[in-house]
């Protein structure tokens, strides 16, 4: 199917869920409400005409100026039909939760952990939601737009004192 036909089929199945539809250079992105994202994905996965069996990518984008600040983006591909579509689900900052799609695509497991790690979006129903790339005790979410590229000059690693404690006796061992 052409991407626009998939978008039309999706709008036909979920008339109340689709917020926005955009086409750019042959690729179509459909924005849907986050509450029923699992149903939308199930439809795209199960419908024999669409059959999006390959989750190419899952990521998030931060738009600090928008009312719904974060956008979780699903890039879907069908190996059988060779067509592609992008689903986007905006999520507000004060309630950063969206349903996990791991029950549909196992590939979403680490993608969702990465989004949780770098944006702080929580995925409801994820089997093992932990930080992935950053240490478990990291504070903040680096890919948010308000996270600085470079930290303030007086900033030091929170566990710095603890780490320095290990070096307390270094001088005792120095050869004099």
């Amino acid at each position, binding site marked *: 199917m052409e991407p626009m036909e998939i978008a039309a089929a999706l709008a036909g199945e979920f008339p109340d869920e689709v917020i926005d539809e955009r086409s750019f*250079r042959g690729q179509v992105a459909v924005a849907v409400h986050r509450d029923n994202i699992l149903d939308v994905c199930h439809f795209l996965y199960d419908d024999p005409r669409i059959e999006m069996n390959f989750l190419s990518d899952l990521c998030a984008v931060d738009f600090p100026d928008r009312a719904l600040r974060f956008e979780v983006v699903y*890039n879907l591909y069908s*190996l059988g039909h060779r067509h592609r579509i992008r689903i986007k689900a905006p999520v507000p900052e004060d309630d950063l939760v969206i349903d996990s799609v791991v029950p549909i695509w196992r*590939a979403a497991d*680490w993608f969702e952990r990465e989004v949780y790690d770098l944006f702080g979006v929580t995925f409801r129903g994820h089997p093992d939601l932990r930080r992935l*790339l*950053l240490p478990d005790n990291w504070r903040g979410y680096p890919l948010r737009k308000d996270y600085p590229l470079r930290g303030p000059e007086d900033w030091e690693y929170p566990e710095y004192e603890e780490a320095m404690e290990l070096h307390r006796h270094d001088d005792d061992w120095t050869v004099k």
Partner: protein
Amino acid sequence: MTMADEPKAGTTVERDADPTAHLETKDLTLNLGPQHPATHGVLRLEVDLDGFTVVRCTPHVGYLHRGVEKLAENRNYLQIIPLTDRLDYVSSMTNNDSYCTAVERLCGIEVPERALYIRTMVAEMSRIASHLLMLATHALDIGAMTVFLYCFREREKLLDLFERLCGARLTVSYPRIGGVQRDTEDEWLEDVYAFTEEFPGRVDEYETLIDQNRIWLQRTKGVGVISSEEAINWGLSGPTLRGCGVPYDVRKFAPYGVYDRLDWEVPTGSNGDVYDRYRVRMEEFRQSNSIVRQCIEALPSGPFIADAPKFVLPAKEALFENMESLIHQFALITDGPPVPAGELYVATETPRGEFGVYIVSDGSGKPYRMKIRAPSFVHISALTKLCKGGRLADVIAIIGSIDIVMGECDR
């Protein structure tokens, strides 16, 4: 222990029929990596073992996280090319090519024929070099030392060719938005052609070394099996997916470059085990070699970079003679190229699998968001599935067979 507790010499100690029956067993957690030669980089695996059987395998990544995506948001489009070198540092040509293809589609730049042919050619050379490294280290992990030396002989030749082409062996940054950095020389093309004539014989040599080797077959056949449905659901791609019999190759499914104009096939396996993944790569050597040959034979003459002054840096000589060029150069360096607002996900086939670049542009010279879909990232997440129920020694064989690069996984 006092003297009274010790058994006296000459007395017999009574034993049960099964001496281990009363012993309590528990799983052993083994920490593999992050600094281990068989993990191909800084990958840490937490392996729970029941005897030699793997009960659970939990990968831990992030040791090489450099925040490439965050950096990309703060660089203009031209400055990102060197960052992509450092993702999959084993085959940086294909990364550069992926990124440049994505930006070109976003901007709607028409790339000259010659540049497309050259890029396809160097991407395939890079694929051969990458598979050579994979085969070398994979065989070394399993215990076949000789293959390593043979593979590095040819890899060295390819890296020397890259060096003559663009001055760098690993972090090449040769493809550019709209074309390539500089044109190829005839002498260089002749040497590449000579390499393609000799290389199929070399692949036969590798096969004589391990293909009939009983130890190799026992270590790889029926190990790390995954069915085609599961492999698709786990998001596997590239030779790892094709080893299961799924002929998914981005070069065929959604062609870029000049792949649709060349005559080549997608090799597939059937069992989805370590051996089939190895076989797929051996066939890809021959296919890639053929693609390189065809590209040289059909290489058209013409410009090597697009005539799009708003996106492409002018030639250095033009800067001293042409005011327009100087203005374009200044605008490109200070503001970056005027990429239209929009968003695009572009997938390409790197040696490891589907490499996706998702760019959200807000119309400025820097990407608003750039997400990289790295095949290694997905493949490492599937290690949990691939290693479960196998034996500890199989974990090493499986890591080698999915061909991971941590720079790409951690970004």
